[in-house]
């Protein structure tokens, strides 16, 4: 299960809406071992594409190093789908390389209702999990 503070959920949705029709992506960092997302880190989609996302490698290095120094982990890795449902694609699954992370997908295909769903992806297996939003 993913437990996420409401303000972080809202920031992800706002980022996804702002970058629409391109895919938006980013990370929620949290203290190692807590599974608690606390810090919102929007990332540049280096692909700037409506059908693909990729973290900028230099920015990723800086962010990962900073998390390491603060003893944090990428608790959530999020990205948006802008014309399809919030479900991991084959490509999403094959490139999912953080077995400990919650993979959050937001769909912005509907301009008023954002679909917000979370998954575990490990060794090509996708498991959807409930999302609990807390104040």
């Amino acid at each position, binding site marked *: 299960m993913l437990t996420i503070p409401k303000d972080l959920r809202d920031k992800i949705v706002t980022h996804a809406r702002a970058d629409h029709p391109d*895919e938006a*992506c980013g990370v929620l960092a949290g203290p190692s071992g807590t599974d608690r997302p606390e810090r919102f880190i929007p*990332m540049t989609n280096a*692909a700037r*594409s409506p*059908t*693909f*996302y*990729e*973290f900028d*490698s*230099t920015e*990723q*290095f*800086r962010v*990962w*190093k900073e998390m390491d120094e603060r003893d944090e982990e990428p608790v959530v*890795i999020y*990205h948006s*789908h802008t*014309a*399809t449902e919030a479900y*991991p*694609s*084959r*490509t*999403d699954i094959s*490139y*999912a*390389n*953080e*077995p*400990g992370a919650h993979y959050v997908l937001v769909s912005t295909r509907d301009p008023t209702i954002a679909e917000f769903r979370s998954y575990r992806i490990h060794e090509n297996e996708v498991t959807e999990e409930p999302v609990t939003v807390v104040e």
Partner: protein
Amino acid sequence: MAIEVRIPTILRTYTDGAKQVEGTGSTLGELLADLDRKHGGLRDRLVDDGGLRRFVNVYLNDEDVRFLAGLDTPVKDGDTVTVLPAVAGGVL
């Protein structure tokens, strides 16, 4: 002295869980060959016939080696090499 190599979680099955390993070599390619002798299979996850795999990022100190000379990038004792899986995906 040696070159320190930081290994991401997903590849620690090749290093008995170690977050950091050491190796030697004068280029990144030689370093990865040296690591593979101690941690069999690791190199294959980073390199294919065409060079570095597309969705693996390798950094020398704080620079992506793709902006240097890839596998031919010179390395020396005291350097730190960091491996990070790229974070990517798409709808197709």
